[in-house]
């Protein structure tokens, strides 16, 4: 029982990370129907930016977090403008290949400048441990969880209450109609990328702090899993991504804890395939049919 509760606590922090990254995937897919393969690497860049802020520039946690988020935000917008925008009307395969290429680019640029080996974060947050009964909860876990929730709430408010947020939802539903209504579709898309990337950056720096080590290829597997979380919750649905992130983290932690840590990835991939077969629109997603 204790172990079970402990796993739940662990899965909450993992889940927060997945949610932050999944939100970027889901928003981008919702608005331009592209699986942004490079998104996991934006998360990785966030971790490296955090490293630079904290270890090289000796910033505190909050300034580092903000700088990282701004940094990844800018990166996301640049990528969108340079690589994805020209391909908006191209075939799906072309767009996907470009996304893959951007992913490779990010990974190897980081490898080139920072080296392929792991980098270690210096301690920037207190490592206080709390005990709730026999369950161990660290201050860092709580902070990550709370910050993630705060970011999720902010995003939700932004998307539902502001004009830009409304524009984002309109463009997701029907870009041409949105354009006809006077919405600046290009700007809206850029903002979507900006928000998603900022969240991924936040996730990256928090992971760097929590797990202490980072490497240039750290984005690929969590990126995949975050994407699976987005699919689970319904690609294009923000609440879906939030639910999906926690569910996937929960499943992964449980399988890793109770069955085998080697198989936990396989289980998540298998889950993806099961979802795609039986309910590709996910939990809260919208089913789109091709018009004949």
């Amino acid at each position, binding site marked *: 029982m204790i172990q079970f509760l402990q796993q739940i606590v662990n899965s909450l922090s993992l889940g927060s990370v997945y949610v932050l990254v999944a939100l970027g995937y889901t928003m981008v897919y919702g608005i331009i129907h592209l*699986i942004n393969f490079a998104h996991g690497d934006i998360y990785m860049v966030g971790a490296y930016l955090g490293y630079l802020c904290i270890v090289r520039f000796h910033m505190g946690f909050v300034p580092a977090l903000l700088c990282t988020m701004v940094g990844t935000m800018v990166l996301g917008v640049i990528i969108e403008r340079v*690589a994805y925008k020209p*391909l908006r009307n191209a*075939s799906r395969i072309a767009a*996907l290949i470009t996304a893959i290429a951007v992913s*490779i680019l990010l990974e190897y640029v980081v490898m080139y400048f920072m080296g392929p080996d792991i980098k270690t974060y210096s301690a920037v947050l207190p490592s206080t441990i709390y005990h709730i009964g026999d369950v161990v909860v660290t201050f860092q876990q709580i902070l990550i969880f709370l910050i993630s929730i705060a970011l999720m709430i902010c995003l939700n408010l932004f998307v539902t209450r502001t004009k830009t947020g409304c524009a984002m939802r309109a463009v997701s539903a029907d870009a041409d109609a949105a354009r006809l209504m006077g919405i600046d579709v290009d700007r809206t898309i850029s903002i979507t990328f900006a928000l998603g990337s900022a969240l991924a950056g936040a996730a990256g720096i928090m992971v760097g702090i929590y797990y202490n080590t980072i490497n240039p290829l750290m984005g690929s597997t969590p990126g*995949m899993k975050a994407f699976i979380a987005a699919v689970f919750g319904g690609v294009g649905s923000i609440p879906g991504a939030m639910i999906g992130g926690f569910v996937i983290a929960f499943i992964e932690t449980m399988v890793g804890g109770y069955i085998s840590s080697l198989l936990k990835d396989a289980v998540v*991939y298998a889950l993806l*395939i099961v979802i*795609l077969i039986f309910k590709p629109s996910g939990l809260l997603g919208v089913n789109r049919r091709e018009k004949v």
Partner: protein
Amino acid sequence: MCLAIYGIVAVLIQTGLLSSFYQITLINVCINIVLAVSLNLIIGFTGQFSLGHAGFMSIGAYATAIVLRMMPNMYGLLIGAIVGMILAGVASLAVAIPTLRLRGDYLAIATLGFSEIIRIIMVNGGSLTNGAAGLSGIPKLNDWTISFVAVVLAVTVVANVIRSKAGRNCIAIRDDEIAAEDMGVNTTMYKTMAFAIGAMLAALAGAMYASYFYVIKPSTFNFNASINVLIIVVFGGIGSITGSIIGSLVLGVLTTMLQDLAYLRMIVYAVVLIIIMIFRPQGLLGDREFSMRTFKRWMTRRKGTAADDKAEG
């Protein structure tokens, strides 16, 4: 089929003249040609975006390695390759049947997921696959002749499939799946067929790899490996067999020449890939093929203009 004859004549001459360093490149190119044309069959000709090619390759590689350990001779190689191809074919059915109803991006992710699952199975295969350390000491039975035969085989199979009713149906599926189905094409069957043939040829490439590079690990056949084949296909032309061959050659040579530049090389590849996608998404050859007919026509046209100049002069 005309392409094959041309190849046999010109390239067999090469056998004795290359240092072992270039021979490695050569065999690598051959393996990549087999991978590229088989992936092109799936992506380029049938329009099914598969990112899991490395998974099928690994099945072929491991099957060959395991059989060769028991039978370290040519028969072992042959049997291993065949076993690998059959297993890959079966695996492709397992992958295809649930995923082929998905479109574009989702299909890509699903195939990627399957490939990762296959890789994780290899890691967890116990004494059979030796886990993450992989299998080593595989008898090195592959050489130029065998590789060449494999390449000719793969190219011929794919070319013959394309120039047949099945091939036309696959291309129709790529161009407009709904229209194809309404014209009586059993789209599920043909998509599955393309997948299976592609997977079996990928396994052949895996067999080639295992018996030349004599060490295989699950990490050899990861997502990056699938991407590398995809890059070749895209570069050479989605939907062009000749393109895949040329792409494998060019990129194989480039990789060897730029070997020392490691990260820079990948950065350059990535940038070039993005540029190609923006400015020439159909790749080098698009969906055109180079055949004896086009070559002859090109030659006669040149002779023709020379004669005209003479007549006027």
